[in-house]
Structures are given as C-alpha cells and as structure tokens.
C-alpha cells in the first residue's frame, strides 16, 4: 500500500529506535545451539529471534518424494505461539507456507544437491520472537545452520530487508516499520557471487527507488556477511 498510516517513523534522520536510515539493529549470532541437530544457529536482529536447525542429508521417506538424481530441501518456517502480540495458533498458515517456500528457494542455488540423490535436507526455523524482518532473519539463521552442519555450500546466503519511509531508504525494518512503511523489500543474496536468491516486495516504489534499495541492501549486507563469517570462525576456534 502507499503510505499506510500517519505514524512518523523517521524524524531528523533518526528512526524511532534511534537508528540512522541504513543502520542495522543490534545483532547476535551463535551456532551449535541445538546439540541434537546436525547444524543449528541462533540469530537475533533487535528483538527478532530465529532459531534454525538442519537435519540431513538423509534418505527421504515416503519414497515418492525422492528425486533419483538430486537431494531436495524441505523447509519449515514457524512462529512460536508467544512470539508476537496476539498468540499465534499452532499449525500451518498460508503466510508460513509461502515463507517456507521462498526460504527453501533461497538455498537451492548454494547447495550441491546433485551430490545427494534420494535424500532430503531439512531446514527448520522457529521464530521465537518477532519484531519485523522475520523471513530474512530466518535466512541468516538457515545459512549458519547449514554451514554448522558441514554441508558444502557454494556461498553463504545473507538476508536483509530494505524499505522506504518518508522518501528515505531504510534497512532492517522492525515490526512497526514493517507495518507502516511505504514499501518493504526482503532480499537474500550470495555475498560472493552477488546473486539474489530471494526477492519480494510489498508497497509502492518507483523503479529507481527499488534499484536503490536493492543496491543498499547488497552493500550493507556485507556487515551481515562478516558477522556470519565471524560466528562460524569463532565456533571453529572453540
């Protein structure tokens, strides 16, 4: 939608939480948080917290889901009942189904699925607290969990959202910005190959504005990428 409300989201170049337009929230990343999983991670952007686990690759059942020449990714994105203001009823939602699909697609290009015929790699992401940008936070969590599982990847995948409020381009939208911005653009990309693997948009933007947002996301996504690398290195050093 165009301007969604009269809430002032930016004043004197500062956003409601004091951030500059292109500033990313305080971020925390950990791996190996779920001992049972082959790989796992904890990722927090501000108050948005995602926990991801990777199980597999393992032979897929029922058999009719197997592909004879490659592995497949199965992904479930889920919000804990207590993650948002109004309790989320457990079970699948249409929003969850769509997000699960786009996250899955975000990782298809980076895995060597042809090396795992007949298998499935399960990526599970739980949003245990939500304050905007949950799908890109999930992408970062999944990227770290896959790496932590030791599954070879062509590149990591970085997720970051961009948007526009009062003619200003912003990054890493929080919940209030998500609901009231003029546009919201979640992006995931491979930082080395510079390829976009998830791209969606809600709101209204000119072609130029959109280009600008994507450019800024990919530039500042470097920060998120470094944080991922750092987190993985720290783990190896332990």
């Amino acid at each position: 939608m165009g301007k969604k409300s009269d809430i002032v989201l930016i004043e004197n170049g500062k956003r409601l939480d004091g951030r500059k337009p292109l500033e990313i929230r305080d971020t925390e990343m950990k791996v190996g948080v779920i001992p049972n999983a082959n790989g796992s991670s904890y990722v927090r952007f501000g108050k948005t917290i995602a926990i991801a686990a990777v199980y597999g690759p393992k032979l897929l059942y029922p058999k009719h889901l197997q592909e004879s020449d490659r592995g497949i990714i199965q992904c479930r994105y889920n919000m804990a009942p207590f993650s948002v203001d109004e309790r989320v009823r457990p079970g699948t939602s249409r929003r969850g189904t769509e997000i699960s699909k786009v996250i899955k697609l975000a990782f298809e290009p980076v895995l060597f699925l042809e090396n795992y015929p007949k298998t499935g790699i399960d990526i599970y992401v739980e949003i245990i607290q939500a304050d905007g940008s949950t799908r890109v936070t999930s992408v970062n969590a999944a990227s770290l969990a896959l790496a932590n599982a030791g599954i070879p990847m062509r590149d990591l995948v970085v997720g970051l959202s961009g948007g526009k409020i009062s003619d200003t381009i912003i990054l890493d939208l929080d919940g209030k910005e998500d609901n009231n911005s003029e546009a919201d653009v979640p992006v995931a990309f491979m930082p080395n190959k510079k390829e976009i693997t998830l791209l969606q948009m809600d709101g209204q933007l000119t072609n130029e504005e959109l280009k600008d947002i994507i450019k800024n996301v990919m530039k500042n996504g470097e920060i998120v990428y470094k944080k991922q690398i750092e987190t993985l290195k720290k783990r190896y050093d332990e």
Partner: protein
Amino acid sequence: MRTNYIFKLLEKGERIDGRKLDEFREIKVLPNAIERAEGSSRVIMGKTDVIVGIKLEIGVPFPDMPNMGTLKTGAEFSPIAHKDFEPGPPSEDATELARVVDRGIRESDCIELEKLCITEKEKAWDVYVDVHIINHDGNLIDASSLAAVSALLNARIPKLEDKTVIRTEFTGKLPVVKKPITVTIGKIMNNFLVDPTKDEEDIFDSRLSVATIEDGKICAMQKGNKTGLKESDVEEMIKLSTKKAKELRKLL
C-alpha cells in the same frame, strides 16, 4: 527431448510455439463469466484458463482497521486442470499463487476498502477473490492476477436489508480505483521470457513477477525458481515487465 528442443530453439532466440521471447500468447478476457457471483472474469492465455469469482460477505473489521472492509484471496488448483493437481488442501504452489495475487491487489490500494465499512468496529464487507484454475499451461500468476482485477472491475455490492444480503439487487459498484497488472518474466540461459507455457516454466532458471500500477510504480514482487539473479538481471526483468504490463492493462 521436448526440453532439449526448447533449449535449442532458445539458443537461437526462438520459442517452441513460434512466439518472440517477449510476446504474449493470445489472450481473451471474458468478464461476467459467472452471472451469480458479485463479480467474475475468465482469462484464457493460450491454453491456460482461469476463472476468478468475487463474493461479498458481511464480516467483522480487523480491530486495528475498524472502519475498513477486508480482502480475502484464495486459489484452488482444481484437479480438472492438470494431472498433477490433486484434491485436498491447497498445495504450496496454490498458496503462493493466492498470496501473490492478493499482494498485487492489496498493495496497489486497488479497492477502496474504507468504503466497505458498514458499521464501525462491527460490520464491513469481506471481499472474497477466489481463483479457480480450469486448465494449467503455465503463467498462472499473470493470468490469475489479470482475471482478479477484471473481476473486481465488474463486481457490484449487493443490497443489505437488516442483516440479510439481497443478492438480486445492488447498491453500486465495488469501489475499484487502481488496476495493478502483474507480468512474470522467466529467465532461461540469459534469455528473458514473457508469458511462459508450462513446458518453459519447468526449465526456468529463475522467474520474477512484478506488479505495476498505472503511474508506473511497482507495488509487489515475487522471485521464484531455483537460481540466483544478478542485480542487472533484476533491473532488466523489471523493465521488461513494466513495459509489457501496459499491453495487458489495455485488455481490461
């Protein structure tokens, strides 16, 4: 084999049905296909065939939008339409289709939802947009989005007497003020394709669906399929999509 043939032709910039890369199939827009619905339209794109019907029901406004009607979009991949469609709850792909169609309508502010409030906080019209696939030969997103807007354009608001909806009389047209058009661009081996058939879709590297409104603004996007896109790809795909949207809009 068919796949290989499609690839070979594409290397020469040709398509299996003789179209140019950026050419639509023949498109028929048939508004008012379902007389008994409040609004409806059937769109036939080549062999792809979809019907959208609009129903208005009385609902309760969302607490945070107490004086607005609501938009509810659904899509059913009826098993009549393709051998791979099975009866049962909506598949992942049907869910994605419904949400992409929904987003184009919602984000463009296509319907003036604030005109659909009946009593603040208590009663408002729910606008149901239901996509029904009759035959699937690719490009369901564009066909369904087009049918949805076409159906909304001919939708009428039934009369309300007391609490009863009188569906044989109408108090006016549904307030539709924007015409969002979604055009999906597929990428195969550095070729950008418009209006893909099912065979072409199956071998896409990547696709990008872009919804635009009359003033040229983009109001929704969705990337699909399995490979990454360069920034320059995205730019080119958006440009092509925006250009082709103008052609489609003329059909409304």
